[in-house]
């Protein structure tokens, strides 16, 4: 289907696209800064638990920033967010279940040798 058969985008739609364009630029800069901060953070003399917590929060922030803005979830129907969130929740639940199932500090690793 050629573009010549389509109606031209409305001025409102174009204005919205321009607004999003600026969001994308700001977000890209923000992602680059956060990634740089993560790399610096691992070499700082801070307790490991604190660094792990901050790294997890930073990763989660980057993750949700990309899915909300770059993947347009913030502009789209909520149903799409919940579809994706269901998969995400199941993935996290799998990890949590494995952690509990294996009770990793007590397992006898000789079984695997």
């Amino acid at each position, binding site marked *: *289907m*050629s*573009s*010549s058969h*389509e109606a*031209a*985008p*409305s001025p*409102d*739609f174009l204005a*919205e*696209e321009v607004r999003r*364009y600026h969001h*994308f630029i700001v*977000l*890209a800069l923000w*992602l*680059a800064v956060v*990634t740089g901060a*993560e*790399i610096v953070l*691992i*070499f700082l003399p801070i307790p*490991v638990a604190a660094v*792990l917590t901050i*790294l*997890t929060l*930073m*990763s989660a922030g*980057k*993750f949700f920033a*990309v*899915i909300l*803005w*770059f*993947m347009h979830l913030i*502009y*789209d*129907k*909520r*149903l*799409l967010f919940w*579809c*994706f969130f269901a*998969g*995400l929740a*199941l*993935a996290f639940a*799998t*990890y949590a279940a*494995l*952690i509990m199932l*294996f009770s*990793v*500090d*007590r*397992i*006898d*690793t000789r079984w*695997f040798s």
Partner: protein
Amino acid sequence: MSDTAAAHEAPTSTGIEHKKLIMWLFLASDCMFFGTLISTHLLYRKLFPAGFTDAEGHQRFIQNLFNIELTSFSTFILLMSSFLMALAVSAMHKGQIKSFRRNVLGVIFFGVIFLGCQVYEFTHFYHQGLTIQNSVLGSTFYVLTGTHGTHVAIGVLWLILMYFYSFTGKLGGHVGALDVEIAGLYWHFVDIVWIIIFTAVYLVEYLGPNGIWGTGLPAVAQ
């Protein structure tokens, strides 16, 4: 939902184009797939913290093997490719096909650089003694990052095809923009998976002398 989304509601029972809904459902299932792979890697790192034994029989720790500068560079490249992909989708929505082509070429270029970094990393690790067969660490690491790399390669191939398809004149209008948006969703997903892998697989290895996994002493209650 924004007013713009409401104004472009699809004539389906959900108000969402079927292609887009199916893509999101696929991404949700892929999320579970990668969730399992990442969980497996983390659990086995905890169970077998010692790393691997090289060809000379010496115990090696993965921290000495990783090249954080290279991995950071490839992470940055993938994030920027995601940015260009968002611009490509935006250009397509505005009907700017030339801008779309420029941005997609950038995404393909960055994707190829990322794959090149991964090939270099795998080759380097192999020559250092870490193979998919000689340790649990090697198995989980190569399967996880290799699966992600395969996803990137598929994405690059998809975008190359889309780039050439745009010259036929058939990639235009709402249908064309939707196709590009779906390819974009896939590419962004590959990016967000790497965001998690970068932290969970690479960065945590640098916390403490031997990562957060300890010194390699057996985790067995004797």
